């Protein structure tokens, strides 16, 4: 075979592999949505689960998942923004930053079940809280921190130096420059990153089994603040949607456990799709909103996002 023929054959193989991966994703979506058909019905989405009879819903699990997401973002966004600012602006390159980066790397590569077990020690046993939503949020914050810190740091570093220099030249302090000039320019990238990480929090499961628990009390909106039945109480057990699917699969005794798992999986898939669309939308809208002829920079932002 000539070199030219080999080249053609390999080109064909590459096209086939790429097409197969795209086909695989479409197949996944088709299976999940067809097996979980009917997941959009309100009595399923907002209904109470039932332990013994068929026809239960996933209302509390859905509430838990979203509430967990909100609490986690409230914890992890300020922390990772602060850490990102420190690494990008204040930290002197050297041994200390190297050590912090090593810690970030370590954190990022820990399996989520290991973080979940640490959560069991620290936020369940040591604090004496038992299984709580807050414990789950704290544990998943640990998982979320390294990625989000990296996103914030990169976004800040990607802001052109002349923006910063201009502000400093006008006599602003470093912090003023950061808050009033650098951060606004970095916001489109940060927001996109936060939304994508929100998708990951929503889909996380292993860490919640040991921190937020496998049960949810009967929730009532009119319950007292301190009561376990109050949906907004963070000191209550909170089984998330992902944990629910896992539990249905391993020890579900409801007659229609399979169908509930299928529908819940469909809800999760749609949520993943929506988070991705939202990230795309946010990045293009915000980029347009903040762009003052910085088109070249936006191109670079696109590339670093793919990383």
């Amino acid at each position: 075979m000539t070199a030219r023929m080999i080249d053609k054959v390999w080109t064909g193989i590459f096209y086939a592999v790429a097409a197969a991966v795209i086909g695989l994703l479409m197949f996944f979506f088709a299976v999940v949505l067809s097996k979980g058909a009917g997941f959009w019905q309100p009595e399923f989405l907002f209904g109470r689960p039932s332990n013994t009879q068929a026809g239960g819903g996933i209302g509390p699990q859905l509430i838990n998942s979203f509430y967990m997401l909100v609490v986690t973002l409230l914890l992890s966004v300020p922390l990772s923004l602060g850490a990102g600012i420190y690494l990008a602006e204040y930290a002197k390159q050297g041994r200390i930053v190297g050590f912090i980066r090593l810690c970030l790397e370590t954190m990022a590569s820990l399996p989520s079940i290991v973080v979940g077990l640490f959560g069991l020690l620290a936020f369940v046993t040591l604090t004496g809280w038992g299984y709580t939503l807050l414990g789950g949020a704290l544990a998943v914050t640990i998982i979320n921190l390294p990625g989000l810190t990296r996103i914030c740091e990169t976004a800040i570093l990607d802001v052109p130096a002349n923006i910063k220099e201009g502000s400093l030249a006008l006599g602003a302090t470093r912090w003023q420059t950061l808050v009033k000039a650098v951060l606004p320019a970095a916001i489109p990238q940060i927001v996109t990153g936060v939304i994508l990480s929100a998708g990951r929090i929503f889909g996380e499961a292993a860490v919640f089994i040991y921190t937020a628990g496998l049960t949810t009390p009967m929730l009532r909106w009119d319950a007292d603040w301190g009561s376990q039945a109050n949906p907004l109480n963070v000191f209550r057990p909170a089984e998330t949607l992902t944990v629910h699917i896992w539990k249905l699969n391993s020890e579900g005794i409801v007659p229609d456990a399979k169908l509930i798992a299928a529908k819940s999986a469909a809800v999760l898939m749609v949520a993943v799709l929506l988070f991705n669309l939202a990230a795309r939308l946010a990045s293009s809208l915000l980029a347009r909103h903040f762009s003052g002829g910085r088109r070249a920079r936006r191109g670079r932002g696109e590339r670093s996002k793919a990383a």
Partner: protein
Amino acid sequence: MHTKRRNRWLEEYIGRTFAVICGWLIVLITVTMIIFLAVKGIQSFTDSGLSLSDMLLSMQWDPNGTPPKYGALIFIVGSMLVSLGALLISAPIALALAIFMNFIAPKWFVSLLKPVLELLVGIPSVVYGWLGVTILVPLLREWFGGSGFSLLAGIIVLSMMILPTITSIAADALANVPMTYMEASYGLGSTRWQAISRVIVPAAKAGIATGVVLGLARAFGEALAVQMVIGNTIKLPSGLDSPTATLTSVLTMDMANTINGTPWNNALWTLALILLLISFFFIAVIRLVGPRKER
């Protein structure tokens, strides 16, 4: 004028302090995690009197027996087999995709492929597990007989989960190879495939290796999807179609059923510590093989 200036510096001071605290919090959390898990993990040896060599080299895991036995070798081997198997399927496909995206695909195809990879990353692990249980396991049951819950099921599910990770890192590594390499190769009369396979890929091999190790690490630590399809039988697999158990799957199943402080519970914490040490090992490997970063 005076107070205004003072406020400015106060603001600077507070802001800076906040940033420094956040930076150091990361160190604090990481170190605390390591210490907690290490303290808990060595209780098997300090409190329960188990021996390290039994734990690491024995295949007898029988916590209910008399005397109870806590050999973890089956789980360690199970984890290795399932993640190496996943890597064997995933790495070549990921490399092909990365090459395709960088050098071959037309723009519109890339803009189709990128969101697909992002979505594949975004699919929650329990959904992968669920897909495995509902599609893959029945299929394998038909082909090989048995229950369908098997090492192979775990390998296939994991290979899909780590594919996007390896692809995106390999793609970045390839994109960082200077275009002049490609041009020089063309200038010498090579075809595209020759340029890619003999110049570009070797030049990017450190980055590609990083992606592969990260994929391996991810596969090793994945818990629920594997636990759902691998069958969780405590014996070495006799073949690809036989069930086995991994470090993560036994932790997932048993941790909640054991009482704190008992030898069984302590042994499980030791498994968690082993998992932690293995992920340290992966970090060390990445630091060794990875490309030097500027910035």
